[in-house]
């Protein structure tokens, strides 16, 4: 289904309409404190939105982890074909180490809602698997998530910062730094690497992003 409604608020920010977020928030209405994980920075709208209820908001600014991605040096002797599996494993472990360092929460922390925004699109396959594994200890059977999945590499929807303005409105700001590498993938490929999550509902937006409501498996 195509979602075409887009607006700008008084501050000139783009506001994306979302029909999936209300469905994610509704079953969490009684959770106290509501445990929220946001991959990005905390912004005005998100804090304002959750600020009238008991909650714990974790803003991890994980995009900082994407600067200078890990480089794996091949141990294969010169003249021989490199072992791709070995390289992938080493890359996965390097990303896992990086994400575990960034995701250090109190023992016993279980998030009710994970706001992943467009972060998954900046992770190659190994990084995506590592991110999901690093997050897994902090999710439970009731954990829900929200993500925008990039299906086409030519979509002009990168390098943005997201906030939750209202249950059905997501605000978007441009970010003033170089766009990191990005990876367009079909939904099935993303979820196959996101251990612990499946897509509950998804909506194809006109801008080329697939908005996905995730739930814990």
């Amino acid at each position, binding site marked *: 289904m195509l979602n075409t409604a887009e607006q700008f608020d008084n501050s000139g920010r783009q506001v994306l309409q979302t029909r999936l977020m209300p469905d994610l928030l509704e079953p969490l209405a009684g959770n106290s404190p509501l445990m929220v994980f946001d991959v990005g*920075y*905390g*912004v005005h709208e998100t*804090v304002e939105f959750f600020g009238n*209820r*008991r*909650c714990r908001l*974790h*803003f991890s*600014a994980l995009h900082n982890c994407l600067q200078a991605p890990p480089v794996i040096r091949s141990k294969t002797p010169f003249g021989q074909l490199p072992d791709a599996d070995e390289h992938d494993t080493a890359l996965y472990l390097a990303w896992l180490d990086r994400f575990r360092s960034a995701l250090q929460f109190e023992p016993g922390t279980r998030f009710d809602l994970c706001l992943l925004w467009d972060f998954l699109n900046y992770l190659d396959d190994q990084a995506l698997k590592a991110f999901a594994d690093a997050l897994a200890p902090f999710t439970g059977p009731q954990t829900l998530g929200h993500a925008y999945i990039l299906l086409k590499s030519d979509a002009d929807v990168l390098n943005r910062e997201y906030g939750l303005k209202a249950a059905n409105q997501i605000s978007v700001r441009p970010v003033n730094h170089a766009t990191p590498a990005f990876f367009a993938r079909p939904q099935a490929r993303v979820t196959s690497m996101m251990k612990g999550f499946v897509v509950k509902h998804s909506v194809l937006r006109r801008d080329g992003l697939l908005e996905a409501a995730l739930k814990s498996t």
Partner: protein
Amino acid sequence: MFDRNKDRQPEKIETPAPVVAAIDNSSTAYRAPAAATGKSAILGATIRVKGEISGDENLLIEGHVEGSVSLSAHELTIGKTGKVHANLTARTIRIDGEVHGDIAGKEKVVVSSTSNIKGTIVTPKMTLEEGARFKGTIDIDPAHANSGTGFKPATDKPATDKPA
């Protein structure tokens, strides 16, 4: 009676510049506590403090502080030039500068766009001003707003460098 001193001006008491000076720029040697005047005491931009700061008046920190700051019933402001590696406790806290440490605002915490914070914020009411970006954890419990009961500061330990 004859008074030899009747034409003399009263002596002014010269005091060294206080580390914490009231905003009021009057020239009187004695300054009432800032709380009595409703103004804030200032810790100036060139001042460095290592240890515990506590008090019964509002405080604006523009300098460097390492340790802890506790103004349980008053307002604490970390100014734009303020650099604080400390746990902060106050009734209301406004942050325009840099803070590495846990922040406990009994009524409210306001974070401005010029701030740079690493730590956990615990408060009943939180405002992240337009343009501000925050990395870390925010604990919000509106039920404790204005009551002061059941409020639990993040920690009483001195601040240490740690990942947000």
